């Protein structure tokens, strides 16, 4: 076992040959944070007394859900054969929605630890991130974690890993993040196998931003990897995409608490603070250079975050609208990919149309809004951006069915994603059936080891955001995992289905769907609303329509009896109070034309919960 380094190398003047930059690629729950905890302890930078579980995950929501939303870089000293090294562990977000962030984190490394649960094997997202690492020419160290578990089957999954990345099953390192077994060996392997960073210390400064987080006290904290040149405190720097310039108020490394240094040299990883308050001014993937001696060519790979999933967020209590606005403004400071604009809905009142990177991003933002700002929210069915061209050759991007142009449509293009699904081979049939029904095109199928299969499909993103994951999980008893990445767009026969209550369109229920699914959607929503909307004083038709053409209809029959049979001396006060209460309740009803709909009915219809009809 290697000893702890006695004399850690000083940042800013570390020889690149003594630096190792690596990421850990792992699926949620496969123990990445626990392994990171053990590394912090074994290298001695966090003493046993200050140790807490999932040390690097800062937000409650991360710790509870076991997901790392924001990555971070930690510098750890490690000694091998009498030589001291500086290991930079760059944490990567583990989810499908953050592929771009993952790719930037990986671009800051020369190697990656591929961490797989020895009881579960590799999952789709891990596989996707592994491919990303291989594309970036990273050296990959395969590791099986949780080998202390009774259910662990290291033999089987070592074979699986070896077949994926080459090499022999016996070369796959076996560790337990929980007990610490094998962790020092892993650190030795990082030093031995992962190449040292290369770069030109004399060239104009170029540093890549791989993460950018908002801190309430310090403003935006930007995490960078220096490629060429040098960064020092008080230096004036420039963002190459926006040309905005800032002074470096502080520069340092995470060890793991922020520790100021004189600067950062070639191959080093650390943080900088410039006093800006909005992460949009410090974008992931951007290149930082020196304002006076700027580089001419930016580092490759920078793209603007592009929302792929849109949903309307509405406060259930309309008076919470200003709080929601303030909350979104705050979250935006730390999340460059979140965007939103006000919208109103007949059914739901005032809210915001929000763009997200994906479904999990939507879920995380909604949860943070509810938890950190105490809001009760309802989200409309997620939608994706469509390019709609009308007969008169106007093309508009439609992120909300209500913006769908009226009149003749020439063509509609929809975003397509490349989807990878990993599952035990017994489920291939049901998965194929599901993907076919969602207009998927099979790209390929491969066995991973003996009994697991990777299925690759091209699918419309719109089909995935609408309950695909729920169906995939329930049809495979939870065994299947899913990853997708954008793969352009395609023309498709899509139509907008409107839902009408007594002839009045209910905006929140309009949807853009494939023509073949329009009838099924219309039927589903009209039946659902029939169950949820209380009877009125008159008959209420519920219709689904494409343009002016009705495709489904249900009818809520009129109330015939609405009177208390008795009203004698002792009933009068009680009955008056009841009527006053009903009157008050009526004020809270949403009106669609003359139809009174309790807001709970709309919410239940959107969430698919039809058991809550109230009189």
């Amino acid at each position, binding site marked *: 076992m290697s000893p702890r380094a006695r004399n850690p190398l000083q940042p800013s003047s570390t020889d690149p040959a003594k630096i190792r930059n690596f990421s850990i690629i792992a699926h949620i729950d496969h123990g990445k944070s626990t392994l990171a905890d053990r590394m912090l302890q074994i290298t001695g930078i966090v003493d046993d007394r200050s140790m807490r579980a999932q040390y690097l995950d800062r937000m409650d929501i991360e710790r509870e859900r076991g997901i790392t939303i924001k990555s971070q870089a930690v510098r750890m000293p490690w000694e091998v054969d009498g030589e001291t090294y500086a290991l930079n562990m760059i944490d990567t977000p583990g989810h499908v929605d953050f592929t771009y962030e993952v790719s930037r984190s990986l671009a800051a490394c020369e190697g990656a630890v591929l961490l797989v649960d020895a009881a579960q094997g590799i999952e789709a997202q891990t596989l996707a991130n592994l491919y990303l690492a291989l594309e970036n020419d990273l050296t990959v160290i395969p590791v099986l974690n949780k080998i202390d578990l009774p259910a662990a089957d290291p033999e089987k999954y070592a074979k699986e890993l070896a077949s994926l990345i080459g090499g022999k099953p016996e070369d796959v390192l076996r560790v337990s993040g929980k007990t610490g077994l094998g962790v020092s060996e892993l650190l030795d392997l990082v030093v031995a196998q992962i190449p040292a960073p290369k770069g030109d210390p004399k060239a104009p400064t170029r540093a890549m931003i791989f993460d950018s987080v908002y801190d309430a006290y310090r403003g935006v904290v930007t995490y960078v990897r220096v490629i060429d040149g040098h960064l020092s405190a008080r230096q004036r720097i420039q963002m190459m995409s926006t040309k905005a310039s800032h002074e470096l108020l502080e520069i340092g490394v995470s060890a793991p608490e922020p520790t100021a240094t004189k600067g950062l040299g070639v191959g080093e990883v650390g943080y900088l603070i410039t006093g800006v308050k909005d992460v949009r001014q410090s974008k992931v993937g951007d290149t930082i250079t020196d304002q006076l001696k700027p580089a001419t060519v930016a580092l490759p790979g920078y793209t603007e975050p592009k929302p792929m999933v849109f949903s309307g967020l509405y406060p259930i209590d309309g008076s919470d609208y200003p709080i929601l606005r303030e909350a979104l403004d705050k979250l935006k400071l730390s999340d460059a990919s979140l965007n939103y604009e006000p919208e109103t809905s007949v059914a739901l009142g005032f809210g915001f149309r929000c763009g997200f990177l994906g479904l999990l991003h939507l879920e995380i933002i909604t949860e943070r809004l509810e938890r950190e700002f105490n809001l009760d929210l309802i989200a409309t069915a997620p939608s994706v951006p469509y390019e709609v061209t009308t007969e008169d050759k106007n093309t508009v991007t439609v992120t909300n069915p209500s913006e769908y142009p009226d009149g003749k449509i020439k063509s509609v293009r929809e975003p397509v994603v490349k989807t990878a699904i990993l599952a035990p081979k017994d489920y291939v049939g049901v998965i194929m059936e599901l993907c076919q029904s969602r207009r998927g095109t099979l790209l390929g199928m491969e066995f991973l080891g003996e009994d697991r299969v990777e299925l690759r499909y091209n699918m419309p993103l719109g089909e995935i955001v609408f309950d695909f994951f729920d169906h995939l999980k329930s049809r495979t008893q939870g065994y299947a995992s899913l990853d997708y990445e954008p793969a352009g767009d395609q023309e498709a026969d899509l139509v907008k289905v409107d839902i009408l209550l007594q002839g009045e369109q209910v905006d929140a229920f309009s949807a853009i769907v494939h023509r073949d699914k329009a009838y099924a959607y219309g039927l589903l929503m009209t039946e659902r609303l029939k169950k949820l909307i209380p009877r009125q*004083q*008159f008959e209420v038709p519920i219709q689904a329509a494409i343009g002016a053409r009705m495709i489904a209809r249900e009818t809520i*029959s009129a*109330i*015939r*009896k*609405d*009177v*208390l*049979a*008795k*009203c*004698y*001396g*002792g*009933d*009068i*006060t*009680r*009955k*008056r*109070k009841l*009527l*006053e209460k*009903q*009157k008050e309740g*009526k004020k809270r009803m949403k009106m669609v034309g003359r139809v009174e709909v309790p807001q709970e009915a709309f919410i239940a219809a959107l969430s698919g919960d039809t058991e809550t009809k109230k009189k």
Partner: protein
Amino acid sequence: MAGPLPIGDVAPSDGKLPVGSAALAVGREFGAYVHVPFCRVRCGYCDFNTYTSTELQGAPQTDYLDEVEREIALAASVLGIAGMPARQLSTVFFGGGTPTLLPADDLVRALSSLRKTWGLSPNAEITTEANPDSVDAQYLESLAAGGFTRVSFGVQSAMPHVLATLDRTHDPKRVPDVVQAAKDVGLEVSVDLIYGTPGESLNDWRASLDQAISLDTGHISAYALIVEKGTALERRIRRGELATPDDDVQADMYELAEEMLSDVGFHWYEVSNWAKSETQRSRHNLSYWTNQDWWGFGPGAHSHIGGTRFWNVKHPAAYAQKLSLGLSPAAGREEPDETASDIERVLLEIRLREGTSGANFPATVIAGLISDGLITYEAARSGQLVLTLSGRLRADEVVRRLV
């Protein structure tokens, strides 16, 4: 007298009425309601303030008349202190519970006390509710001799399976005999029916109406069964043993009642009440709907005197104790403000054949009620809002739109 007591202000322990009550009482008739909170068995649908002998706990039935007489004395004193105009009783109504569980002499004695205290106006209507199995010819004769003029029989249904679901114990075959006996001693008779009981078909209901009509009385009440919270019926429905009464079926049954009753000469005068002539209407019940004054005696009884509503403590033991200490048995009271009084007036008057005045309501609301078929055009043209047949079934909606 259903359900829990309302939430109101605390009533003063001496029962003293608010200042100005006397002025508000001018021009109103005065009636008395006597609550008899006893039943032999509790029916599964009933949430009235009534007790079987095992539930009474220290409030014996035998002392009950003494307590009522104490409250009569207290009422006389309270009304006197308030400076109320001297008014004879226009109507007296004994309800329950089962008033006829008490001996006929007890009811007559209570009536005598009321008569001694306030006097009865000429042609005063004196009614008691009765279970068909708790009276016989002799009992009815005693009532008539003691001054009663009217008896209201809880017949509910002609069908044994419906009566069984309602936990009613009487034998339907006995009904014609007791009705005849009541008529023989000169009493006006009302038959009270319930419809929409779980398991009751439209034909069952038709049979009950047929039987009620064949009894040839001047008055019939028909109430839709209401499943009240906390009753045995509600629990049985919740457990799935019985079906929930269906609103649409109850609406069909109401329409059938209207059709069959009007065919044989009855007219509706209140949402759930039909009479053959105006003089056969229940004047006591009309006093509730036309906002007259009345004093309710007995546990849980409600009163309305000069613009104040108040109500007594519910349990017979608490009621007895208060009176024995010389205190008012009132538990709470309310003086509805102008808005509340207006709402009450509309919700009560709209139930009546004469309807309520259309003055002060926006023309658009009235037009809406007409076009939705809830009130009649003819009456509205002359300024009165009168429910149509389908409006009678949706009177609560009409009130919500008006107030």
